């Protein structure tokens, strides 16, 4: 038997835009064990609730992660609104849904690009990011920010989108529909993509369940877990089904995300068609008192914001459980027994967002 060697992977590594460190225990080319160590981007922002009042904390919540920024602010605001019993106007709920789905589009396109890059498929990477710029343009036109938007606030949203603009946005989505389809077609059918990802990084349905996988990792292993089905924001009035694949490998996780692109476009169109007229915010009076678990579906899966408040302007405790931290134990499982050369692809297949995971 070959001797064991330990290969360090990260924190600075060409395939990772973000720092995570893995100690890979190898027997020849086979990974026997992967030991993650984190903490490179821990900021300790949950404790900032003691210094910022509950309305200002939305800015901080948004900067937990620059990719899921909008959905983080929705999660936090939803918790405060539930504690204070605020009735957020319907129009604001729809706008939140639209921007959430735009975030998902931009996040998934970003991921598909990075995944292609990890496979060494540079052309595909560039194409995914080229399409993503269209989505970011729409974000910028409607909110003012490309990746950090700052439009969600306790009690509603800060900006409205005019009906004419909504029409323009859906028309734009229609016009890039073909490009998205072409892109997905490569991920579905291309021989080199399949070669790198089919049967790689297996995570059985039982393991996914036991280890608490969320989002596309769970969906790729046959678990239909999609928090949007709980009907928060305006999802309750829209028609969609979670996308589930049963291959349990990197390929399935990739397919889930590619198919979610079309789903997001469809959700935006539905929301744009049904959006009611009216206010976009309610007045917030007083301070929150109570506690609430708010769950939202981010591009990477279920995210929990727990808020506990005692009636003062600073809340007592904010706890965030982000999808990437939930997906690290499944990742360790996937890496067991894989080939060294597959490690980058497998690590990326959970769409790790270390900024979220460590906060």
């Amino acid at each position: 038997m070959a001797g064991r060697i330990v290969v360090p992977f990260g924190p600075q590594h060409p395939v990772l835009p973000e720092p995570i460190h893995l100690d890979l225990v190898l027997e020849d080319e086979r990974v026997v064990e992967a030991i993650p160590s984190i903490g490179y981007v821990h900021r300790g922002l949950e404790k900032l609730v003691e210094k910022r009042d509950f309305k200002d904390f939305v800015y901080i919540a948004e900067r937990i992660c620059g990719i899921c920024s909008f959905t983080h602010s929705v999660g936090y605001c939803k918790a405060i609104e539930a504690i204070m019993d605020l009735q957020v106007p319907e129009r604001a709920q729809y706008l939140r849904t639209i921007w959430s789905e735009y975030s998902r589009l931009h996040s998934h396109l970003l991921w598909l690009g990075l995944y292609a890059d990890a496979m060494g498929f540079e052309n595909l990477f560039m194409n995914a990011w080229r399409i993503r710029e269209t989505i970011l343009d729409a974000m910028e036109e409607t909110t003012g920010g490309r990746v950090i938007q700052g439009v969600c606030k306790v009690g509603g949203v800060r900006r409205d989108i005019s009906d004419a603009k909504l029409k323009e946005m859906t028309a734009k989505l229609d016009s890039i529909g073909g490009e998205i389809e072409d892109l997905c077609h490569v991920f579905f059918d291309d021989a080199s993509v399949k070669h790198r990802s089919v049967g790689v990084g297996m995570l059985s349905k039982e393991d996914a369940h036991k280890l608490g996988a969320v989002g596309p990792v769970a969906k790729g292993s046959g678990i239909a877990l999609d928090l949007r089905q709980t009907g928060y924001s305006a999802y309750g009035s829209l028609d969609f089904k979670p996308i589930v694949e049963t291959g349990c490998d990197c390929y399935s996780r990739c397919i889930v995300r590619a198919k979610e692109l079309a789903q997001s476009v469809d959700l935006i169109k539905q929301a744009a068609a049904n959006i009611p007229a009216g206010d976009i915010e309610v007045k917030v009076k007083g301070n929150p008192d109570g506690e609430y678990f708010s769950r939202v579906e981010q591009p990477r899966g279920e995210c929990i914001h727990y808020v506990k408040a005692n009636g003062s302007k600073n809340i007592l405790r904010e706890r965030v459980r982000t999808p990437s931290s939930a997906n690290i134990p499944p990742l360790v499982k996937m890496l067991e027994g894989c080939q060294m050369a597959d490690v980058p692809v497998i690590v990326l297949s959970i769409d790790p967002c270390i900024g979220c995971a460590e906060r």
Partner: protein
Amino acid sequence: MSGLTKSPWIIHYDASSCNGCDIEVLACLTPLYDVERFGILNTGNPKHADIFVVTGSVNEQNRQVIKNIYDQMPKPNVVIGVGICACSGGVFKECYNVAGGVGQVIPVDVYVPGCSVRPEQIIDGVVKALGILEEKRAAFAAESKKGTDTGANADAKKDGGN
């Protein structure tokens, strides 16, 4: 030497950024902004890099990593702090695990403020950094010439190198 400043290679490290600035750094490389057409390449290897782009702020865990990458880069080089986090700690300044901007660990030549920074600003920062790199190179060349003349590199000269 000036040929190198026309095609500078960049290494990017995410100190403790929220990702917002990182993805904007990456966006600079992709078709809309495409800095590769100017010869600017992103490399993962510190020993190949001329420009060190750091996003995010410093904490105890990554302090050494930043230093290691910087020490491995060939000199002269330039460091760009991208995002308000890298400048001062930004919105996270008061967090218990944030020591402040990147300037605390390594000398920074260009700061690009913004939260999140726009790709145009990053490119602008890189262009500014190129000017500084050029100056540093000139100074470095003058310095090593002086060294050669005083005989410090006499052996190398004898072998035909410089």
